[in-house]
């Protein structure tokens, strides 16, 4: 049995375990659910170390080649270099400052020094807020601008028709969410109701799309069972 065989075998068993929830809640499902969370957390940690913390930070600070972790053992045995041939750059030591600052987050686990973590958190909130502010303008301003559509496009009936529906929907839905006055006045009441109906149609579209997505996920798993797992499993018999 190769590693690949075992990978496919456990892939199938894991899938069955998770889908067993459809029958009813059971310990088989629970075990694999917890395994999944544990594996995902562990994998995230290892990959972060391997792909970022080592090559981007530690390898530079300790002057090791960024290829160290990727060098196959047989090449290392043949004398492949594990130290960089590039001259050492002492300025990389400055990386220790943001590293130490970031590690301050872990003081949250101590009563005495927990205040240090608040500085780190406030810094994260500050840059997060700034990025969100910039991101908002970059993302939504073009959408707001594109919502000002001409209702009549000469010589193009369908674009005019589409634009009219778009603007009508936009106005009705905005009126529905405008709570500064009662929606009992003529015109406003009808527009608000129309806004609600139009949103219902939109939610229907979302729900339909959700069904399609969920079915796709199931199809992929079934395909895995038919094309990989069953032929793999049948080797045993």
């Amino acid at each position, binding site marked *: 049995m190769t590693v690949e065989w075992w990978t496919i075998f456990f892939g199938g068993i894991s899938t069955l375990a998770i889908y067993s929830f459809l029958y009813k809640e059971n310990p088989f499902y629970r075990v694999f659910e917890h395994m999944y969370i544990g594996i*995902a957390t562990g994998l995230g940690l290892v*990959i972060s170390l391997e*792909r970022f913390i080592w090559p981007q930070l530690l390898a530079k600070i300790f002057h090791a080649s960024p290829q160290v972790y990727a060098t196959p053992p047989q090449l290392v045995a043949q004398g492949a270099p594990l130290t960089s041939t590039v001259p050492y750059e002492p300025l990389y030591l400055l990386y220790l400052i943001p590293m130490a600052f970031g590690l301050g987050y872990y003081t949250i686990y101590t009563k005495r020094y927990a205040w240090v973590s608040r500085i780190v958190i406030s810094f994260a909130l500050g840059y997060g807020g700034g990025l969100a502010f910039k991101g908002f303008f970059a993302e939504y301003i073009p959408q707001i601008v594109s919502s000002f559509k001409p209702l009549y496009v000469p010589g193009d009936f369908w674009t005019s028709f589409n634009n009219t529906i778009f603007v009508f929907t936009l106005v009705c839905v905005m009126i529905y969410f405008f709570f500064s006055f009662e929606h009992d006045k003529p015109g406003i009441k009808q527009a608000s109701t129309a806004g609600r109906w139009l949103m219902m149609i939109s939610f229907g579209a979302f729900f339909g799309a959700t069904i399609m997505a969920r079915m796709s996920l199931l*199809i*992929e798993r079934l395909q895995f069972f038919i094309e990989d797992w069953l032929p793999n499993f049948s080797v045993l018999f």
Partner: protein
Amino acid sequence: MEHPENKGFYEFLLSIDRRVVYVLVLIALIVPLLVEKGMQPAKMTTAQMAYDAVEKLPTDTGKMVWIAMDWGPATQAENMPQTSVFMEHLMRRKILFCTYSISFSSEPFMKSVPNEVANSMNKKNEESGDPYRYEYGKDWVNIGFRPAAVLFVRGLGKTEDVREYLSVDARGTPMTEIPCMKNIKTIEDFIMLAEFTGWVGAFNIWVQFFQTKDYKPIFVHGCTSITIPEAFIYLDSKQIHGLFEGVAGAAYYSKLIKGDEFDPVNNPDLATKFMMSLSMAHILIFFFILVGNIGLWWGKLAEKGGPS
């Protein structure tokens, strides 16, 4: 006054165990997979837009397409066929590309998907006598996963030396030693951004930060079916220039790039096989909705004293 004796059909529907529905859905999905037949995909204007955008890209300039593979096993079903056909199109046109992800769960796919596409293309070239062979480093590079997604993308837009900024690829090879990265200096050397995801928030990062004051990329997006309605907002505002609508988008794109080679009935690929099963499931669900509504209507009629 209620007439429960007339509500037989309605009550029968209510009494059906949900597991019976699951089994019926399972049968509808599994039968098309067993018969190994695909179906002609429906025309998708949005996939056509994505195809046209790639067709307009210049070749032999040493510039590159940035592919953000922000998906993992959870949305593999839809995002993998999309990414796969998109890479095939780039390879057919000999346009360089790099792969990157904001999530570690994409790591295995960033290695396997381009490799599988390249192997398949190399096999075809071998059969047709074309001496060209697609190779890692020459035709594409895998940047891999990097943490701090927003900060990373923001930094990419700011840097004046992308190779220095990225430092090494996922194999640990310095970017300066990778041939296809030779002409890449700034973010403006990426002639297109293609982002495939099913995760909330991932797509927005690219819309917001993969740009500078003077540069906005040609942007193609592959989304899962759930986010199709949302993606149309970005298409309408021209923030994206093409869209893969779930697996259906991938199937139609596959038809566009393969042309006469495309034979979904006798030789279905990943996306077209999916479509057959998906269509069967949709017909079944449509049937369930119809029967459920008739049952409800029947029950209401019974409450009012009919049907007799």
